[in-house]
């Protein structure tokens, strides 16, 4: 049957290696996990392909070092891919490989079509800027100039993520971990991107704070009908938020399916281990 929907984001055969490789590791069989014992090259993402559809949350799980964050960095151009293709429906009708665009175009895409929230707020925020200033920065990067409009939009966004209006001028360094993630989320949403990338955004937060950030993501996703790629090693988070899930191991996607398929009828040995050890 022909596909009845057009993906928002389409990734084809993405590869990312750290290191040059050597004759020894040309043969994949000789790798130890995803690492070449001779030249030290790490094959962090190997032949990763997937689609993200409108309004869906795609979860990515996998053990530490399986390449999840590297993948997210590649998608946001924080890292340069070794090779592969990425297409966004909202960029030239999905006909241009984003990885081959100029860095100027990539900056445009980052600022207008995507938002990202990092596990470590230091990577996503200027800790000494005011919170609303952090948001304005992203608005300016996307070409906004009107101060009043940015002030309004910033306030609206902080309100949406439950940061009290009177604290909007405070710097994130004064905020708790949960509040910092909220400011990051507000910033990521500022240019109404159709796609949001979330990498372990609740890891390291207190359970109750985690819960409130997850709630926020869920309600924003419903309200804005935005597409989200969500990386987490926490299957509870995946169960709560993801419609579909990819499982990564040693840089590869070893299994994918509806989230309930992955959790209730895992096929791959590793996925079974992951799921059953937590039940």
């Amino acid at each position: 049957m022909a596909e009845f929907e057009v993906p928002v984001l389409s990734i084809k055969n993405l590869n990312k290696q750290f290191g040059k490789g050597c004759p020894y590791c040309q043969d994949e069989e000789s790798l130890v996990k995803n690492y070449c014992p001779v030249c030290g090259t790490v094959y962090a993402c190997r032949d990763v392909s997937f689609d993200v559809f409108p309004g869906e949350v795609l979860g990515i799980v996998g053990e530490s070092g399986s390449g999840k964050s590297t993948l997210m960095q590649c998608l946001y151009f924080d890292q340069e891919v070794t090779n592969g293709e990425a297409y966004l429906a909202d960029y030239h009708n999905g006909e241009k490989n984003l990885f081959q665009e100029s860095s100027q175009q990539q900056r445009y895409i980052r600022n207008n079509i995507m938002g990202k929230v990092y596990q470590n707020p230091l990577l996503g925020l200027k800790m000494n800027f005011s919170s609303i200033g952090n948001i304005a920065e992203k608005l300016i990067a996307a070409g906004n100039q009107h101060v009043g409009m940015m002030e309004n939009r910033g306030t609206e966004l902080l309100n949406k993520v439950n940061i009290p209006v009177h604290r909007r001028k405070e710097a994130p360094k004064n905020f708790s971990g949960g509040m910092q993630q909220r400011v990051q989320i507000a910033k990521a949403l500022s240019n109404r991107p159709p796609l949001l990338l979330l990498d372990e955004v609740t890891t390291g937060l207190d359970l109750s704070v985690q819960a409130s950030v997850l709630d926020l993501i869920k309600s924003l996703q419903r309200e804005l009908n935005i597409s989200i790629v969500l990386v987490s090693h926490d299957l509870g988070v995946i169960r709560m938020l993801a419609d579909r899930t990819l499982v990564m191991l040693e840089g590869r996607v070893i299994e994918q399916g509806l989230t309930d398929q992955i959790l209730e009828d895992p096929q791959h040995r590793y996925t079974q281990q992951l799921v059953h050890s937590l039940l």
Partner: protein
Amino acid sequence: METLLEIKNLSKSFDLHNLGKHIRAVSSVDIQIKEGEFVGITGKSGSGKSTILKCIYGTYRIQQGSILYHSKKFGRINLAEATERELLYLRKHEIGYVSQFLNVMPRTTARQLVKQAILEMGDDHDLAEKETEKILAHFELDEELWDSYPTTFSGGEKLRLNIARAMVKKPRLLLLDEPTASLDHDSKIKVKLLIEQLMKEGTTMLGIFHDLEFMNHLCNQEYNIQNGVFSHSTSFTNS
């Protein structure tokens, strides 16, 4: 009446790699359901009843057989080969499932849960709000509970909410896995009333009930699993 669902030679087994186990859950299942019918499955615990429903809903991926469903959106579609997105669409718009277990979403109020289900069908907010209140009232869920979190509800309240959420969508095909198992008599009657109402409105249902009497009054056909053998036991035509 047209055939809505036709299962042919379905088998499902589980390979548990880390335990070195191979579990045959069901084999050689054949089921035919016409539009508007209420079909029951009976069998002992562990005989594979829930497995069949989960295969239809797409939670379990099958090794063998086909599950042909007549979709409004896609026409004839083999659910065993449908894409993930097609399954998600069907779950939102055409196929409902009430689990035998209490699976409510944490941190979403009862009202939000039901309303969200209606909105997924494309209704507008005001209508959804009205429908939500109507069904919550039908199941006599205390008004005080409407805006609180189901994780704090009693077993019966959770279950009633689960059923309300599935039924309010008026799916074309509703899969019911022992929805009344832990309900008291009054709640069972309420579920029954709703099932009857849905039948009148043309919803096709495939259900597992441990209360055979409850089921027999509603059923058009019954299938039975005994000692791993799946068979068509009764047809009550023109009922």
